[in-house]
C-alpha cells in the first residue's frame, strides 16, 4: 500500500575534510572556506524512503531547514528520486539549537498533513548530536526507532525494523506513523539519475532568482523566470516561520535553551618526544627502555 514519507535532511560543512583555512586567526569558524555536503546519513535515510516508495507506492517529500544555499541538497534529492522538496528558510530560524530546530521541523511536518513515515539520518557530521530526530518525534507525538538499519517488514499500519546498536542488533515492531533515524550501514544510497538530473537541474527557490538572473539574463525579470519555472514544476517551495504557523519565541536563538559559553581550539600538549631510529639497534633500545620502565611486562 502507498505510504506518505517525509525525509529530514541537512546541509553540513564537510568536517571530514577540514583544511587550515577552516579557522580564522581569531579562532572562529570560517564557513566560507568550508565545502558543504549532503549529510551522509541523511542520504541513507532518503534511500530507505525511496525504497519504500518504489516497492509500495506513495510519495517522498524531502524537507530541510537552512540558508538559501541548502537548496543544493534539495536539488540533489530530486536528482536521486524525491517526489517533492521543501526548504524551510527564514532569519527567524537562525541560531537554533536542536530543540528549536525540531520545533520548526515538527511544525512543517504537521503542515504536510497526515504522514506515515518520517526518516532522518541518525546524526549530522557537524554536531554529531543525534538529537533532532527523537526531539521531532516527541513534538509530533510519534514513536521513534533510532539506529534503524533495515525495514524487515512493512505491512498495513505496522513496521518491523532492525536496529544496529553498539552491542548487537534489536528487532522491533511498531505501529505507524513513526519516525526512523537511519544509520550508514543501512544501504548504499543510489546515485542521481542522468534523466532526473536533466529534468531538475533548473529547479530553484525564489531565494535564488537573483543569482539565476545573472546567469540567464535573457529572462529579464524575476516574474518571467518564476513563470517559466512554475510552468515546468521547477519551483522549490520556501516556507517561512509564518508559513508553518510557528510561535516565534520557540524558534531560532530565542527558542534555544543552550548557548555556547566559549570555544577553545584544540591545543596539542607539547610532549618531550624522543626520536628512535628505525634500525634494529634503535628499536631494541626502545624495547629495553620500555621493559626497564615496566611499561612492557
Amino acid at each position, binding site marked *: 500500500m502507498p505510504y506518505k514519507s517525509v525525509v529530514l535532511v541537512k546541509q553540513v560543512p564537510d568536517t571530514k575534510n577540514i583544511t587550515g583555512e577552516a579557522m580564522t586567526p581569531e579562532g572562529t569558524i570560517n564557513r566560507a572556506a568550508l565545502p558543504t555536503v549532503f549529510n551522509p546519513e541523511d542520504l541513507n535515510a532518503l534511500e530507505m524512503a525511496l525504497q519504500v516508495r518504489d516497492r509500495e507506492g506513495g510519495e517522498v517529500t524531502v524537507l530541510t531547514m537552512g540558508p538559501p544555499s541548502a537548496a543544493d541538497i534539495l536539488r540533489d534529492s530530486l536528482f536521486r528520486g524525491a517526489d517533492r522538496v521543501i526548504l524551510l528558510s527564514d532569519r527567524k530560524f537562525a541560531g537554533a539549537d536542536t530543540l528549536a530546530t525540531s520545533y520548526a521541523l515538527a511544525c512543517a511536518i504537521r503542515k504536510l498533513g497526515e504522514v506515515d513515515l518520517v526518516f532522518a539520518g541518525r546524526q549530522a557530521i*557537524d554536531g554529531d548530536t543525534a538529537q533532532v530526530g527523537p526531539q521531532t518525534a516527541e513534538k509530533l507525538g510519534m514513536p521513534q526507532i533510532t539506529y534503524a538499519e533495515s525495514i524487515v517488514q512493512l505491512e498495513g499500519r505496522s513496521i518491523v525494523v532492525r536496529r544496529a546498536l553498539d552491542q548487537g542488533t534489536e*528487532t522491533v515492531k511498531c505501529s505507524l506513523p513513526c519516525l526512523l533515524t537511519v544509520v550508514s550501514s543501512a544501504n548504499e544510497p543510489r546515485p542521481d539519475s542522468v534523466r532526473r538530473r536533466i529534468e531538475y537541474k533548473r529547479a530553484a527557490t525564489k531565494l535564488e532568482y537573483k543569482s539565476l538572473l545573472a546567469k540567464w539574463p535573457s529572462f529579464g525579470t524575476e516574474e518571467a523566470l518564476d513563470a517559466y519555472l512554475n510552468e515546468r514544476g521547477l519551483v522549490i517551495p520556501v516556507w517561512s516561520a509564518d508559513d508553518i504557523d510557528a510561535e516565534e519565541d520557540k524558534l531560532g536563538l530565542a527558542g534555544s535553551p543552550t548557548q555556547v559559553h566559549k570555544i577553545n581550539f*584544540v591545543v596539542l600538549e607539547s610532549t618531550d618526544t624522543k626520536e628512535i631510529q*628505525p634500525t634494529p639497534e634503535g628499536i631494541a633500545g626502545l*624495547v629495553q627502555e620500555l621493559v626497564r620502565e615496566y611499561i*612492557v611486562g
Partner: protein
Amino acid sequence: MSESRNIWVFVEQDEGKIADVSLELIAKGRELADQLGSELWAVLCGQSVESLARNLIEVGADRVLLAEHAELKLYRTLPYARVLTGLVKDRKPYILLFGASPVGRDLGPRVASAVRSGLTADCTDLQIGDYESKKEGVVYKDLLLQIRPAFGGNLIATIVNPRKRPQMATVREGVMRMRSADKGRKGEVERVSCAFEPGDLVLEVLSRELRQSTVRLKDSTVIVSGGAGVGGEAGFQLVRELAHVLGGEVGASRAAVDSGAIGKEHQVGQTGTTVRPRLYIAAGISGAIQHRAGMSESNKIIAINTDPDAPIFQIAQYKIVGDLNEVIPLMISALREKAK
C-alpha cells in the same frame, strides 16, 4: 532561591547489569553535587532491579528513585520517557545526566523535548561554573558547564543552559572515572509508581541479538592501532601480531575503519572508544584531532609514521620516522628476543 540543586543520573541497566557509563556518571555526579552542596539521585528503571539500588548508593548516590514495572523490562523509548518525564516535571532536578550510549542518546532528546529544556550531546567533561551573559548583563552562578568536542573534533565547546531546567547532558563512556564502592555508605531507595498510556506501548521488542564483544579496548593496558598508512586488511596482520606479542588489543583510526580494513569495534577516537592504556602504539596514523581525542591520555605513546611532520608525533613520547612494515617486524623480534 527555592529551586532544587539536585543532580540526577539516569541509570542504564540491561538484564540486571548496570552500564559502566552509568557508574562513571554516578562518580562524576557525586563530585558535582559535593561542589553544589546538593544531593545526587539515581533513577533506576526496569523489572526486578531493586537489588542494584544498593550498589548505586555504595558508589555515590544519596537516593535511588526506583521504577519497577513489567513494561520496563527491556528498554523502550516511550515507557521509559513516560516515567522519567513525569519524575522530572514533578521533582524538578537541577541537572540530569545520561550516558551517550544508544539508550541515552535515544531517551535524552525525547525527555529534553518533552520538558522543553536544553540537552548537550556527547560531553567529555562536566564542571560547575559561572556564566556571564553579556547580552542580558546577567551572571548566572553555578551552572553546569557542558564541555564537548565540536566541529569534527577541531574545537572544544563549552555549552551552558542558563534558564531552563534541568540542565541536561549525555556523557561519553570511558571519559569519567568510576569510584570504588563504599559498603557502609548510606542512602535511601524510594519506589516510584509507573502508569502508562496505550500510546506508550505501541512498540514491541521482537528479538535481540547481542554479541559479546571480543574487543576490549577500554580495559586494555596495551593498544596497537593502525591507520590509513597500514594499507588494507592484509596490512593489519602486522598490527595484530605486534598486539599479540605485547598481550594487547588492536585499535584503529577512523580512516582505517572507513576503508573497511578493520571493524568499527576497533575504532579509537571521538566517534569510537576513548582509551587511556599504559602503552599506545600508533602505526601509520597521522593523528587527526578526532583520533587524538580518544587516546591522548595514554600513559606512553609510540608513533610510527613515514611523515616526519605527522601531528601524532606532537603527543608521542617516542617518535619513529619510518615504514611500519619494517619497524613493526623489528619491534616484534626485539620483544621476542627479550622474552627468551
